[in-house]
């Protein structure tokens, strides 16, 4: 296997990928409509890209690369509106959220494309259970070594992204008690987890080459790590987020990642340690189970704090960077949401409380995504 080359990109640029649910407008169950929708969208001039995903009930929105939050949000809104318009013509609706509240996984159909069919063969029912919807955030890095440092430094903040994006409290028709139940679906895959404790791009290359020789992987794509470098884009990719219920939240999360990456690479506040990974799974569980109310162990001070407090403090530290990156507004928005203790999971639970019907929850979810909330 050729050693992977990290194609540098301009630092702190960002892009997002959003996996979205395609639902019918009768009972708002997942619908089989991705192919028809993509066919229509193929004939429309759009920024970014809309792509198929593993099941016929999912599409993926890819933004282009942006240096500023404002431009990213504008583009996402444009794409959202175009997709919603064409979905409407097919009598389909689109919504965010990390899981569909009541779909039955056995009923899903795999999008017919060779890679997806291969995955479905390999993973059996896991592939269908993997009908979950995430947001991936890319942040540009100047070098492979920077990327490795950033992946380790961001590990401490993984719970932040989980709690801020959590939007999958319901799964298979029940309240899971988790804020993000989606993460549990991913944990079942053998190559999920976090990047091994390598210290440089060369060390990572050696690791990947070894795994390739073992014939455990075919390429870097087979690792489903929470954060992984993406050498061909020259980015690191944060993969723990549920797809939020609005593009505004999605863009704000990207702005958060951007400012955080800027601060971490500029200040390098901590040297990566193995110890940081000792608390990793504990913190990750707390965040996906309890959301903003989760417990958080700071790997450097070893102190326990409430996750919301740690996020609030971090947001404050980022103020100068947000200023420089022109993202004060979204960062402020996140702080307000943390202060109120509200995330999308709370919104979904509230919607269910009001309506007592998962169908209604998804209907409201779709309206919220389209930007026309009642």
């Amino acid at each position, binding site marked *: 296997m050729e050693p992977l080359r990290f194609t540098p990109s301009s630092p702190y640029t960002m892009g997002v990928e959003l996996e979205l649910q395609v639902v*019918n*407008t*009768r*009972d708002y169950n997942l*619908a*089989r*409509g991705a*192919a*028809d929708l993509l*066919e*229509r969208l193929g*004939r429309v001039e759009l920024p970014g890209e809309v792509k198929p995903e593993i099941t016929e009930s999912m599409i993926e929105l890819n933004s282009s690369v942006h240096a500023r939050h404002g431009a990213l949000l504008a583009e996402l809104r444009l794409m959202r509106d175009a997709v919603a318009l064409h979905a*409407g*013509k*097919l*009598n389909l609706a689109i919504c965010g959220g990390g899981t569909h509240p009541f779909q039955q996984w056995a*009923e899903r*159909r795999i999008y*017919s494309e060779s890679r997806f069919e291969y995955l479905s063969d390999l993973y059996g029912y896991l592939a269908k259970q993997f009908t979950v919807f995430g947001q991936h955030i890319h942040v540009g890095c100047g070098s492979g070594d920077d990327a490795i440092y950033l992946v380790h430094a961001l590990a401490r903040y993984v719970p932040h992204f989980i709690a801020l994006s959590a939007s999958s409290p319901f799964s298979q028709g029940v309240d899971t008690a988790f804020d993000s139940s989606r993460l549990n679906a991913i944990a079942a895959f053998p190559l999920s987890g976090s990047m091994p404790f390598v210290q440089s791009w060369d060390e990572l290359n050696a690791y990947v080459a070894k795994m390739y020789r073992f014939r455990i992987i075919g390429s870097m794509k087979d690792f489903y790590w929470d954060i992984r470098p993406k050498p061909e884009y020259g980015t690191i990719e944060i993969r723990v987020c549920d797809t939020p219920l609005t593009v505004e939240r999605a863009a704000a999360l990207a702005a958060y990642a951007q400012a955080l990456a800027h601060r971490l690479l500029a200040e390098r506040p901590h040297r990566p340690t193995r110890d940081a990974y000792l608390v990793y799974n504990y913190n990750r569980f707390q965040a996906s189970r309890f959301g903003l109310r989760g417990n958080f162990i700071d790997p450097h001070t070893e102190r326990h704090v409430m996750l919301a407090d740690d996020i609030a403090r971090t947001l404050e530290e980022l103020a100068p960077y947000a200023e420089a990156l022109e993202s004060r507004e979204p960062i402020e928005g996140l702080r307000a949401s943390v202060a109120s203790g509200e995330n999308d999971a709370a919104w979904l639970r509230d919607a269910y409380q009001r*309506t*007592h*019907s998962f*169908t*209604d929850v998804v*209907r409201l979810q779709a309206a919220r995504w389209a930007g026309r909330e009642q």
Partner: protein
Amino acid sequence: MPTPDFAFLPDFPPPLGALTLFGLLLLAGLVGGHLVRQVRLPAITGYVAVGMLVGHTGLGLLTAELLQQARVFVDISLGLLLYDLGRRLDLQWLRQDRWLLASGVSESLLSFVLIYVALALYGLSPLYAAIGAAIGISTSPAVVMLIAQENRAEGQVTERALSLVAMNSVAAFVIVTVLLSVLHLEYRASWVSIVLHPLYLLAGSMLLGVVAWALALALGRWLGKREERQFVMLVALVVLTVGSANMLRLSVVLALLVFGILVKNFDRRHRVLPLELGVRAQLFLVVLFVVAGASLDARYLAVAGGAGLVYVAVRFVGKMLGVMLWAPLSGLRPKSAALLGLALTPMAGFAVVMVQDVWGLYPEPDVQALAVVTSAVVLLEILGPVAVQFALRRAGEAGVPR
């Protein structure tokens, strides 16, 4: 003569009774459906074939009297299906994709015109030709819905086909009703009945649908969003509506369609849960198709088989053209549009009921017209389900069969 000692014994032969009949029909359907599935034909074809075997055309086991007894089960199943179908007519969708509405109008219109011309050329009087053509507008909701369910089909061809079926069912019913008034004129009925009968049918049936809708909303609100309770509520309202329509000599088809359409489109607070009744009442549907098969008199094929074939052909052309015309604007691939046209092939079993109703009104009906339309229905009872299954599978919309 049984002696008093044996008075506890039933008469010989004992009367069959509705329940025994229901069970027998169900078993017969089961056998037929299972057999045809072995050769990958839709189960419906098996139900209909078994029906034909035991009915008029075949062994004659199912007499007209027994069929009359079975009518109640048929009415229930039709009622449930028509409610489901009404719920498929999504006005919001028609607003967002006007070309869907356009294809609904054009396929109805074109199939009407083409059948009319063909029947007129065949020598039918203009009025009977028009009635025969109007009946041909409608696609069988029962066949399309059941095939879609059986194949777990989902996608644009399936969804659009069901919307078009809902539209053409309404269109067929309204046009047949209007033509009825002209038929009255032909038979020199009084002006009062010419005007009032269709008016009573249309307005009365719609009103019945409105009442059912209002009750559903009120009860739905009171019961809350509990699936089991709302299911019972909806079945109760559907059966009640069917029964009232029969009692009041209104149209079951129109009343139930209106009920479904209103629930789907005018329930702003979403009080009524989106439940599919047909899926949960499969048993009744089996009986529906066995009875449909048994009611058909295939002997008409001998009289007017050729004309029936022409009827089927021009109707097919009309529907196909009507759909293909707007496909590019609707963003539908030509292949999907063609399959959509194909999926509209089956003719409604209640077409037979309409035919008999129309022809039964007056002492000297045009038997020739009856023969042509019935032949077409017989042909399509066999071909229709196969065509729909082929269309949905070819469109790639069929899932793993249940």
